[in-house]
């Protein structure tokens, strides 16, 4: 049975755990720098913001840059279907702040900034209140920053750009944030869930972290179960839990599942039969050609139309381009229009050919990974819903299918 870790403690419906209750339950945050970095290294913790980058390696590159770094606690959660970061911020803010404190001490950071969506009011209130309760000097100096309500605002360079210049658009790399970020200082951009894990690893050690996990994976993961499941919402599961097991924990599928969207809009569609067996672990999913992303597990049933869902999501992603790079803005718009044409007016050879051509041309030609993410998503749709794309009827000839997945 899964042992809750991040989400253990008082019931989530009770809201934010106070500092006093937090310290009473878990003890004070740990102190020794060298021990902490070693523990994080041995734990094998990977980032939970979407990229899944090894945390210890990221911290090493930030400290290797030389000057005092800035830490951005990234709670922007731009992915519309993901709820985990908000749930964590509204119920366990002190875990996140502990993690930020540990990072600040290990990396000898000059500054901590807590980056929360300006429209995520509950999360903002909880984090601000928790911050006010903290006595540690690093946290007393920390500032809150309101992320603009756009998909790309949570991207690392956009977060850095926002804190440097108040403009939340991604920037060209080089330089990478860990080399030169906010105000030119090396910057660590770390997701709130990752920092919450750091807070527990710092107290209990790497071996404790690795004691949870199934099928060779280590630790626990926060997921957002979405779409055609009976109890959608945030779950904490052991890494390596299969999609089928996670869906069961979310009350089971509502209707016969057709496909699963793994990782949110920045992830991939997987055919349900194949998806159910997949273990929810970054390394294992990478090997299978997928990714955990931000932990969204979105199920659509046989009643839904994969083509229409894909077209809607592509339209959203195209609209969220920051319009800085031609290939992204024009390419995603063209791809989205082609999908919409197939969805609304029926399949046609030209649009299918265009989807294939533009997908391969646009990929890798933006300053950030937004177009790449959208194209990986689209290519997974073309694979998973290949038959539907090839034979899609014009919808005005048929009844419209129910909207299965939420956009923002």
């Amino acid at each position, binding site marked *: 049975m899964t042992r809750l870790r991040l989400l253990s403690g008082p019931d989530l419906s009770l809201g934010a755990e106070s500092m006093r209750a937090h310290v009473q339950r878990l003890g004070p945050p740990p102190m020794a720098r060298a021990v902490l970095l070693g523990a994080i290294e041995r734990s094998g913790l990977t980032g939970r913001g979407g990229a899944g980058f090894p945390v210890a390696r990221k911290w090493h590159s930030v400290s290797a840059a030389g000057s005092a770094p800035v830490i951005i606690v990234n709670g922007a959660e731009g992915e519309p279907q993901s709820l985990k970061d908000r749930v964590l911020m509204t119920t366990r803010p002190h875990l996140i702040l502990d993690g930020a404190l540990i990072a600040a001490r290990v990396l000898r950071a000059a500054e901590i900034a807590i980056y929360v969506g300006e429209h995520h009011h509950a999360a903002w209130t909880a984090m601000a209140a928790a911050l006010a309760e903290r006595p540690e000097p690093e946290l007393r100096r920390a500032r809150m920053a309101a992320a603009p309500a756009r998909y790309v605002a949570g991207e690392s360079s956009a977060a850095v750009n926002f804190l440097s210049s108040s403009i939340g658009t991604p920037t060209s790399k080089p330089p990478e944030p860990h080399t030169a970020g906010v105000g030119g200082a090396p910057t660590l951009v770390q997701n709130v869930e990752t920092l919450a894990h750091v807070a527990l690893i710092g107290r209990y050690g790497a071996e404790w972290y690795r004691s949870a996990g199934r099928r060779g994976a280590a630790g626990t993961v926060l997921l957002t179960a979405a779409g055609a499941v009976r109890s959608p919402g945030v779950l904490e599961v052991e890494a390596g839990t299969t999609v089928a097991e996670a869906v069961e924990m979310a009350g089971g599928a509502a209707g016969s599942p057709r496909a699963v969207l793994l990782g949110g809009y920045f992830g991939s569609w997987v055919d349900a039969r194949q998806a159910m067996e997949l273990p929810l672990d970054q390394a294992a999913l990478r090997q299978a050609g997928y990714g955990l992303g931000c932990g969204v597990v979105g199920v659509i049933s046989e009643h839904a139309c994969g083509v229409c869902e894909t077209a809607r999501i592509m339209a959203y992603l195209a609209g969220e381009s920051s319009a800085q790079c*031609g290939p992204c803005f*024009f*390419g995603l718009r*063209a791809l989205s229009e082609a999908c919409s044409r197939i969805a609304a007016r029926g399949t046609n050879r030209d649009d299918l050919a265009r989807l294939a051509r533009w997908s391969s*041309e646009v990929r890798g030609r933006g300053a950030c990974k937004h177009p790449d993410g959208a194209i990986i998503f689209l290519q997974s749709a073309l694979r998973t819903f290949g038959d539907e794309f090839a034979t899609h009827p014009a919808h005005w000839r048929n009844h419209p299918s129910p909207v299965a997945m939420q956009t923002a």
Partner: protein
Amino acid sequence: MSNDLSLTVDRIRCDGRGLCAELLPEMIRLDDWGYPIVAAGPVPDHLLPLAQRAVSRCPVLALALRRVDRDQ
């Protein structure tokens, strides 16, 4: 190919003027919207002077020749 210089494009600065594709058609072509698609890999020696000229003629200095790490 004895050098390890590759062409990179600053995608934000690039605004699709298309001079690069005219000056180095061997390695650069334009997509449907006028933005450059650059052939991957190091620039062949015989094209290096032409690549350098394309770099210096980009009106917004978006095109660059960079040394790329082998293990990247």
